[in-house]
């Protein structure tokens, strides 16, 4: 899901460029189904609440009910997206939200237009038109999004680095080889370091055989760049080897011992 086709690319005037992952049709469809359930629940609740009034004043009660039906279908999406950072309850549950396609603040007219055009997106059944539009457009936009200049993105689920225990509390014997650590830092490209870190973060998502194969490959690659002494590596699994390497790459550099003289860092 990280291909360029499924990201909203934002280029800041400051020269920095980054990508926000777009929400796919499936998550959007399920979010919409949840919203339909909520709207149905709201209208049913209103129907029950006004049943007493309809018994006394059937004309006014029925009129109110009809207006409430339309208002609930139209205003639920409009108000929640406008006042709740582009989210409805369904979108919030699925971790997605609406945003302006240029990365700007979502405007009221955008929210209204995208919700009104939904009726065409749902045509003829099960959102066929909207789904086709999403598949055919670069930013996964249904017709309502195209008309309003909006996209639906996945909410950031960033947790920061704090929750990640890279070495699992084990002593990292590699750290005593300052020269080798320095060589490692110099030789490994940032992209490769990020891949290794990502592999550790996602290790529980892999099947066992895939995890072993992945860490074997990474460990072999790191060994080909810098060879730590055999007595330090022979008892280590490939995964622990990679964890040690990642700790060296991402953790702060320890004070330089007098016996080693390589400059290992330069604060950017």
């Amino acid at each position, binding site marked *: 899901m990280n291909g360029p086709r499924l990201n909203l690319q934002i280029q800041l005037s400051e020269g920095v460029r980054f990508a926000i992952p777009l929400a796919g049709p499936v998550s959007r469809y399920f979010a919409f189904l949840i919203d339909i359930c909520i709207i149905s629940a709201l209208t049913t609740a209103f129907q029950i609440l006004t049943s007493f009034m309809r018994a006394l004043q059937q*004309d006014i009660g029925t009129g109110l009910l009809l207006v409430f039906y339309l208002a609930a279908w139209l205003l639920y999406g409009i108000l929640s997206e406008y006042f709740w950072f582009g989210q409805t309850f369904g979108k919030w549950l699925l971790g997605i939200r609406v945003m302006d396609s240029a990365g700007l603040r979502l405007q009221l007219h955008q929210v209204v237009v995208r919700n009104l*055009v939904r009726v065409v997106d749902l045509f003829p059944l099960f959102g066929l038109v909207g789904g086709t539009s999403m598949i055919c457009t670069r930013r996964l936009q249904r017709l309502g999004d195209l008309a309003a*200049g909006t996209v639906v993105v996945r909410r950031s689920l960033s947790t920061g680095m704090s929750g990640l225990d890279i070495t699992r509390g084990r002593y990292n014997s590699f750290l005593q080889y300052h020269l080798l650590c320095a060589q490692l830092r110099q030789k490994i490209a940032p992209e490769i370091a*990020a891949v290794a870190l990502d592999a550790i973060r996602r290790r529980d998502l892999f099947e066992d055989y895939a995890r072993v194969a992945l860490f074997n490959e990474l460990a072999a690659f790191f060994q080909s760049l810098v060879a730590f002494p055999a007595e330090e590596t022979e008892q280590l699994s490939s995964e622990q080897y990679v964890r040690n390497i990642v700790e060296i790459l991402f953790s702060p550099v320890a004070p330089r011992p007098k016996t080693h003289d390589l400059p290992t860092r330069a604060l950017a």
Partner: protein
Amino acid sequence: MILDLERFLARERPKWDELDTALRRYETDRFYRPSFEESTRFFDLYQHCTAALGRLQEIAQPELSQYLEDLVARAYAQIHSVHGRSRFRPFDWLTQTLPQVFRRQWRAFVAAGLLLLFGCSTGVVLLSIDPAAKSVLMPFPHLLNDPNARVKQEEKDKGKRLNGHQVAFSAYLMTHNISVAFLSMAAGMTFGVGTILMIFANGVDLGAVCADYIQAGQGTFLAGWLLPHGVFEIPALLIASQAGLLLAGALIGWHSRVPRIDRLRLIAGDVFTLSMCAALMLVWAGIVESFISQYHAPVLPYSFKIGFGFVELALLIWFFARAGSKPRGSTSRLL
């Protein structure tokens, strides 16, 4: 990997937190107006975080980059969104923005009107050629009867049929017509095909009904029945279709060098204004149809109903032609 992450974080994190706090304030209150010092500080923090993001991207720190990207994107949205800081003022919107938008996009309204006239003419011609086609052309079952018989029945009935149901009937008319109007607008996204078909079909219905009643010599009844609510209902449909044709025009973009996405973005505000205008007009039309149009002579004289319709029409024409033509103080956009 030449970055001491821990020191970098210790130095930068307070600024990120400060920016996050400021952003929450802006996001919670959409109309929050910061002081000059607050604005300057906010911009400094944004630039600082952008620089930090650039540095983190260089060393491929996915977790932190993601966090900062989110923060910078939110700040970017606040800084670069020049519209939408003003509170929405319904009175200004109604008396200034709405008529101005209508006049600015008059061509689409004329096109919708011509399409409706074409549909009406087609309805008249079809009914004249084949009177038996009435069952196909009439929009509602009660219009299938002989117009003379219906007029007699309605005048004899004295509006009792609707007594005690006016509010529900009015609500039904409003919700139904508003749904149709919004559909007509939204159908503009089918390159205008849906909108054109809807205007034409409504025109055929209207033309057939008018031809049927006029041929039966019930022109006065027809005017008294349709004018009070029709002078709002039909223009409302045309205005919704005007919005639909605007969408279609932006989607197609004849001879335009502006990218499609920007063309749509440019007219989205006008589409919103016109759609809301149509909805408001249909609320009024629903009330009038239920409480005035359906009551015929002798309850409400035809002259009163026709006169009422013409007064409404005159006010409507004045409103769209003249209202909001003089700027009132602030020139900032309302939306």
